[in-house]
Structure formats: C-alpha cells, structure tokens
C-alpha cells in the first residue's frame, strides 16, 4: 500500500483516488451517484463532497470529529428549512385502501406535515445511507488490499512467517530403514496414554501393486503448515501454533463436532468416543486448572494470539518443569496427551517436550526415541527451518546426508564422466548430435535429468496443498497399493504383538471400529485379554 504516487497533490488522498474518480469503483459509478443526487432537490456537490470525505474517514485520513465539524452546518443549512414531504416515501400507497377510522394517506400526511424534524431526519437517513454505501464499499476494498499485511497467525491457522517463528517442527522419515516393528506405535501410546485403537502413530505395511514388494509407511500427523483441520474447526480448538507450526487441539474448548477429522485427508484423528482407557490421575501433569496455569507469570516469552508461551525461568515454566508436566503446553493450554471424553485427539509431536518442561529434551519425540532404541533410527524429528549445524537440525541433517549417499547424475558425471550409466551411444545406431541445440561437449556429457540427488523423497498428498511437514525418504505408495490386512500377516509384528511393551491398561488394536462396536460396555474379549 502506498500513497506516494499521488503526492503531487496538496491534499492527502485516499489510495484509490485517481484524477478521474475518488471512488474505487470508478468514474462511471461516481457519475451515477451524482446523477442520482442531482435528481433530488438537494445540493449534489455537497453530497459528493461528503461521500469523498467519508472515504477519507474510513481510510483514517481525517477523524470523525473533523468530518462532523466540516459538514454539520452545511447539512443544517441544506435541510433545516425544508418542510416538503418526501413523496418517494409514499410509493405504492394505495389511496383506495383506507382504514375504518383514519386513512393511510391522512396518517402519512400527518407524519410529514407535523414537523420538519421528521422530513429532515428521513432525508438525513437517505444521505447517510448513500454516504455509508459509498464509504463502506471503499472500506471493504481498502481492507482487502491490506490482507497481505494482516499476519496470518491472527487466525491460528498457519505458523508465523519463517523470520518470526522459532521453529517449524517436522520429521524426516526414512522408509528404507523401517522394518515395521511398530516400536514407534508403542512409544507413542506409552507417552500419551491413548485409548485402545487410537493409534496416533500408525504404520502401514503394504504391497506394491506392480512388484509385489513389501513396503512400510509410517504415519504420524503431518502437522501441515496449511492444515485443513485447523481451517475448518468451528471453535478454533484445532489450531496451528504460531511459534513452531505444531497442529494441536485445545481439549478445553473442543466441542467434539469432528469436522477436523472429516477435513483431514490423512485420517490421523482419533476421537475419544467413550471414557479414556487411561485415567487422568495416571498421567503426569501440573495439578492446577488450565485457567490457573494460564494465569501464572510467563515471562517475556513468545507472544501470540491466545496467550504467551512461558519463557524459561518464568513461574509457569518452573512449575510445569517441576511437575514434569505432560498435559499442558507453554501457553498453559491443555493440548498434550490423550484427550478427555467427547474431544478430538491426534499425534501432537509432544508439545510439552518442545516447550522444554519435561524430563525429555526439547527436539525429541516419543516415537523417535522408541525407534532409535531399536537401532533402526528411521524417524528424524527436528526443526525443518534449521540450517545444518543449528540446534534441532536432526531432520534436515539426516536428509542432507542421505542425499549425499545418493548423488545426482550430474555429480556422478562430474566425478567421472566415463563411468556414467547413460547409454547414449547404442551399438549399431549411434545417434548424432544436433549442432543447433547441443555442442559436441554437451552431447558427450549430457545434462542430468535431476540436478540434485537421486534420493527418492515425497510428502504425502502434497497436491492437496496441505504443506505437510513430514518428508519421507523412499517410494510413495501408488494409487492401487493396498495395506496388507494387519490381522493376517505373520512375518511382521501385528498391533497385538506390541502389547507387552505397553505400560497402560490399553489393548493395542488396529481396527478400532471392532472395539467401539461393543458400545459403552466395551468388548468382552478385551476384558478377557486383560485378565490373561
């Protein structure tokens, strides 16, 4: 937005004001307005001047007081002495339709003739409406123009811009390293106390439609930077943290409408249909109400729409750290661990860890720890904005290292052009270079089809514009690939097989529907398996 172009004029101008017209809708519109005003018996110039200044008023160039002072007298002069009824107002009155005691016409005449106040007031209303309409349309356009300047985090839908935010948490998941052991699933359940079948971390075993090869896809929440779930939430319980892009649910305000679950393309949400399997008392948390936690001093931490993130050393941070709290985030929002009944839950990327008030270090997540413990190290959590060498660069560093292990053809060519694997010279039919396009040198050392690395990476359903923050190394599942029925595979661990690793009274299950179908009483075989 700039008003500089119009600086040759003495008077400050509305940004839309051009030589032809002051109105954003152009000269034609303005002429029409003038014509309409001229049809009335009042001063058209005054009306147009008022409309012009109404726009300056909404643009903030003049104050309401100035506007009023400027026109009050004029308007009085123009309208006060005028006693004529406004016949426009009588349009459509049927003179034949008279009531029993008093005719409609009489009554209207009474009104109009009984005082100049009324006619003036009704005219003022008309003027006001015209001015308001002109002014408002200017205001509406003016506001749109400014949209770029309104920080998007105002709505809690997107993370702050790259310069303002502290991190952009995400993961690099190396599917080539995953053997489907499901330790990450167990690690997540142990960290968060999720109920049976609510597998916030989920691993697909699927077979490639073409080759029949067994593949895995590790599926946490994608913590999208343009998260559909956050956009559609009617109460902004599901939101994106401005500070670091984590997509969380405020368990205190969620109404359980499940629109987030409907809008999420990945199917990562798990609603708390009944009582949680893990009682609140068994979780570790600061034993204060969210309101109390929010009231505690947060220091000079990152300030956002809905509260300040507690700074290290502040009262709130100290209290949360002392409790090794795993339920509140740094704003004092109840947004971590399993949700209460009637509320939506999903993978949180452990915000209490990222806010640095648990015994586990910032920059780690439970699933990654579990995966590392098995020695597989397929999950690499970190700040996806980080440069190599920064804190929390594990994700980007790992990705870079893997890229270097899979050098691009260009890099290969540069290393030893003789060794490149491109069969440009086929026996018997040596293709000739076209001089107009390639030099001989180009022909002998052709440009590589990929200019960076041959490492296959993808983001899930990126085409939908969700800007997911999980980068996968490996091959993307094809459109016809199907998950291997988790209940029938024997060669890899099934969800039931990780039961022994679970610290809670939670039955690990893949198909939750089967479990939920038993309703409030719970399925009979689950109670059996617990006893067993």
């Amino acid at each position, binding site marked *: 937005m700039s008003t500089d172009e119009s600086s040759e004029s003495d008077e400050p101008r509305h940004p839309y004001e051009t030589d032809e017209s002051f109105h954003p809708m152009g000269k034609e519109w303005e002429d029409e307005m003038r014509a309409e005003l001229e049809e009335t018996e009042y001063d058209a110039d005054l009306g147009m001047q008022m409309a012009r200044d109404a726009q300056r008023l909404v643009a903030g160039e003049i104050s309401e007081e100035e506007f009023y002072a400027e026109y009050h007298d004029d308007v009085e002069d123009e309208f006060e002495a005028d006693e004529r009824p406004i016949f426009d107002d009588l349009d*459509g009155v*049927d003179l034949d*339709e008279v*009531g029993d*005691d*008093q005719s*409609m016409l009489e*009554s209207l005449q009474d009104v109009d003739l009984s005082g100049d106040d009324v006619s003036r007031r009704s005219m003022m209303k008309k003027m006001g409406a015209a001015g308001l309409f002109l002014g408002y349309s200017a205001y509406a356009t003016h506001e749109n123009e400014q949209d770029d300047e309104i920080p998007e985090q*105002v709505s809690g839908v997107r993370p702050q811009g790259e310069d303002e935010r502290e991190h952009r948490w995400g993961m690099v998941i190396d599917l080539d390293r995953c053997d489907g052991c499901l330790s990450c699933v167990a690690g997540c359940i142990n960290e968060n106390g999720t109920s049976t*079948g*609510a597998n916030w971390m989920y691993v*697909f075993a*699927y077979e490639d439609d073409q080759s029949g090869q067994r593949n895995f*896809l590790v599926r946490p929440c994608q913590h999208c930077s343009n998260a*559909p779930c956050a956009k*559609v*939430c*009617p*109460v*902004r319980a599901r939101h994106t943290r401005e500070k670091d892009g984590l997509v969380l649910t405020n368990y205190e*305000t*969620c*109404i*359980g*409408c*499940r*629109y987030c*679950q*409907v*809008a999420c*393309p*990945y*199917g990562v*949400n*798990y*609603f*708390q*249909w*009944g*009582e949680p399997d893990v009682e609140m008392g068994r979780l570790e948390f600061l034993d204060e109400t969210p309101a109390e936690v929010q009231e505690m001093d947060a220091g000079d931490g990152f300030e956002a*729409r809905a509260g300040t993130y507690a700074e290290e050393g502040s009262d709130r941070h100290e209290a949360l750290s002392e409790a090794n709290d795993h339920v509140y985030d740094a704003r004092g929002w109840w947004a971590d661990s399993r949700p209460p*009944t*009637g*509320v*939506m839950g999903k993978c949180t990327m452990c915000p209490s860890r990222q806010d640095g008030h648990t015994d586990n270090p910032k920059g780690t997540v439970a699933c990654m720890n579990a995966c590392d413990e098995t020695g597989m190290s397929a999950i690499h959590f970190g700040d996806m904005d980080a440069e190599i060498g920064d804190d929390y660069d594990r994700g980007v560093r790992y990705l870079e290292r893997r890229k270097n292990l899979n050098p691009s053809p260009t890099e290969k060519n540069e290393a030893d052009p003789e060794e490149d694997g491109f069969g440009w010279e086929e026996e018997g039919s040596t293709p000739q270079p076209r001089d107009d396009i390639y030099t001989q040198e180009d022909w002998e050392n052709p440009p590589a089809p990929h200019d960076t690395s041959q490492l296959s990476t993808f983001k899930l*359903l990126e085409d*939908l514009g969700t800007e997911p923050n999980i980068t996968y190394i490996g091959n993307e*599942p094809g*459109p*016809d690939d199907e998950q291997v*029925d988790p209940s029938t595979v024997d060669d890899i661990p099934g969800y039931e097989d990780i039961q022994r690793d679970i610290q809670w009274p939670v039955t690990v299950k*893949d*198909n*939750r*529907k*089967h479990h*939920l*179908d038993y*309703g*409030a009483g719970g399925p009979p075989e689950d109670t059996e398996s617990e006893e067993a």
Partner: protein
Amino acid sequence: MSAIDAEPDDILTPIKNTSWRWFIAFGVAAAIALVWLAAWGYQLQEGLVVTNLADWGSGGGVTWGLYIGAFIWWVGIAHGGIILSAAVRLFGMTRYQPVARVAELLTIGALSMAGIYIVVHTGRPDRLVTSVIESYPWTVQSSPLVWDVTVITLYFVMTATYLALTLRYDIVRLRHKMPKYFAPLYAALTVGYTKKEDQIIERMVWWLALGIIVLAPLLLHGGVIPWLFALLPSMPGWQGAVQGPSFLTIALMSAIAGVIIISYSLRWAYDWEHVLTDNMFRGLTAWLGLFSLLFTWLQLQQIITGVFAAPKDLSKFSFAKITTPEYIAAMTFIAIVLAYVFAQAVDKRVFSLNRSLAASFLVLMGTLTEKVLFVFEGLEYPTFSLYHAVPGHYFPSTVELLSVAGTASLCTIFFLVIVKVVPVVELHAVESHDDHDDHEGEEVRA
C-alpha cells in the same frame, strides 16, 4: 381463485375444537419423544461410543453418520418450506396461500430439529455456546461450519420475523373469537398494532420474501450447507459444484412433501376440504414431481461423471454408491413418485389425495436415505485409501435411529400445539384476494 367457500371462522376450527384423536396423537408423539430423550441421556452419560460411529482411516468407520445426514435433511425441509412460502408472496401464487403459513411453521419446526441434531451430534454439547462465540471473529473467516451456523441463525431470525409479522394481522382480527387463556400471548404478538401498519407490514413481508428467495440458492441449501462437504478436496464423493443445486432440489422436494403431509392431516382432522382444496394438492403434487425430476437429473449427472473415466478415487466412490442397496431403494422411491406425478398429469383420474400422501412419504424416506448415505459414503471413500480398513462400515445404532423418530415426534408435537394457539391458515387466504393481488402486481413492477 382458491379457498372459494371458506369463511374466516373456518380457520379457527382447530383452535376451538379438540377431539380425542388429538390427545392420542399427542400421547403417542410424546411417548416416542420421551423414549428418544432417554436414549439421548444415555448417550450424554456414556459418550458417543453408544453410536455406531468410529474414526475413519485405521479406525474402520465413519465419524459422521445419521446425525449429520438427518441434520441436513431437516435443514433442507426448513429451507424448502420458507422458499415455498416466500414464492407464494412474491409471485402471487394465491392457490397455495392456504399452506403458506404451514410452510413457515414447518420451517421453524424443522430448523429447531436441525438445531437439536447439532447438539446431539457433538461430543461436548455443554461447550457449544461459549466455544463458538469466543472464537467467532476468527473462525467465521475460515470454517464452513461457522458460516453454516451464521446463515441458519439468520434464516431462523428472518423466518420468525416473517411469521410474527403476518400473524399480527390475523390475530388482531380474530382475537375476540380465540381462547381467553392465551390472551397475554396474543397481546404480546400484537403489541403496538395500528391499522396503518397493515400496508407497511405487507411491504416488509414482501421484501423479506425477496431476501429469502435470493438467499436460499446463494447461501443456504444451495450454498453454505453443501459447502460443508463440497469444499473438502480429500473426499471425492462430496467435492464438486453439483452439490449446491443437488442439495437445493432435495430441500424443495422434502419441504413440499412435508407440507403435503401436514396439510393432508389438517384437512382430514378438521374437514377442511374447502380450505385445503383438491386443486391445491394437485398443484403441490406437480411441484413435488418437478423437483423430484431435477433431483434425479442431478443424481444422473453425478453418476455419469463418476463412472465414466473418472479419477480413481471418484470412480471407487461412484461404483460403491450405485451398488449400495439403500441408494437403489431411495432412487426407486423417487422413480415411483415420478411415475405417479407424470401419470396424474396425463390422466387426471390417477390423482388422489392418498396417493399424493404416499408419494410424499416416499420422497421423505428417499431424501433422508440419500442424505445419510451421502454423508457416510462420502467419508468411507476418501482419496487416501491405503488403509485396509477403508472403506469402513457403518449402520446407525439404536440410539441413533431413535433420534429420527424422536425428532419427527417433537416436530409433530410442535404442530399439534401450534394449531391450538394460532391460525395455521392465513386470514388472507380465506378473504377476498382482489386487493392484494392488485397491490402485489404494482410492487413487482415498481
């Protein structure tokens, strides 16, 4: 033109006479409603685990089902109802003036039922008001569900205003013949009435009707409600521009069916052959047929684009849709209705009130089935279908099914009560139309 022999006193019949049948109807409706309220209490106590809903994805279910389907269905009836009434006023369709108020009341009743479904559907209904209001300035910018709530509220206010304004004229003129015990209510409804206002109110109502007619296709059942679904790119069964028109036709056919059923009941209960004439029912039946035809056409559009060389996700959904027995049943219902409407248009002897009544029930069953299927089949076939448990499965639980009977009963109770309180047929409808017709004509030209 219509209501040839009816006298103003006729419209007071329901208020003055209450038969034993009324008490039986009330008792049955109240009993069903109570059973459902108890079931809802159980749901509040245990959580939504008592429904057959579940998480889509690895969870193997669908997270929206009958509650949302029935919500759209009720909203559709409501929107269609008020469109019908607005059309009567705007286009001077005096033939249908006797049912204009029934349509308006149906709007109020059906919108209330839709509102109840929102409450029933949510996991934490106790937070509905506080959470929604607190975040409104932000969410209204991005959440179709909030647009929905906004527009439905607007609609409720417009309809209630419309109804309150038109009631004043009637109550003032008939008050002396109406029961004394409602006197305070009548006094409240007619507060500040002067004869001068009749003309003004008529204009206000005309403008309100215009607003409703303009808003309905742009914002309501042709806009915001289908946008809840149509704007999500990850569910191929929902996405697309056809949803708006498709929802609107369903709204109109459901509302006309609802109006036929209620008017039929009123005519039967109060011997209103001269007020709610055969001629009017014939007209309503023809409109029912027209909107059923439009609905069928839009279904065909969706099926053809979904099965002929469609993208994989859409094609999976479409094949599933056309092979679902419930969908085939719903479409068969509509086909039967179409056959009847065409036959009675060709040969007037085919028409009978009972057949039109049956056609109306078929339409309502068909649209409710289609709406519920639309909701959960759309969710069953997401673009990301790698999950073994996708498509999930769903059949409503007893608690959920009871809600349909329960809300239908509540809506019945609403009508049973309202017929005892205010005239459900407008006084204008049984007065001479001449003046009004002329006047309306003038305004249309203006």
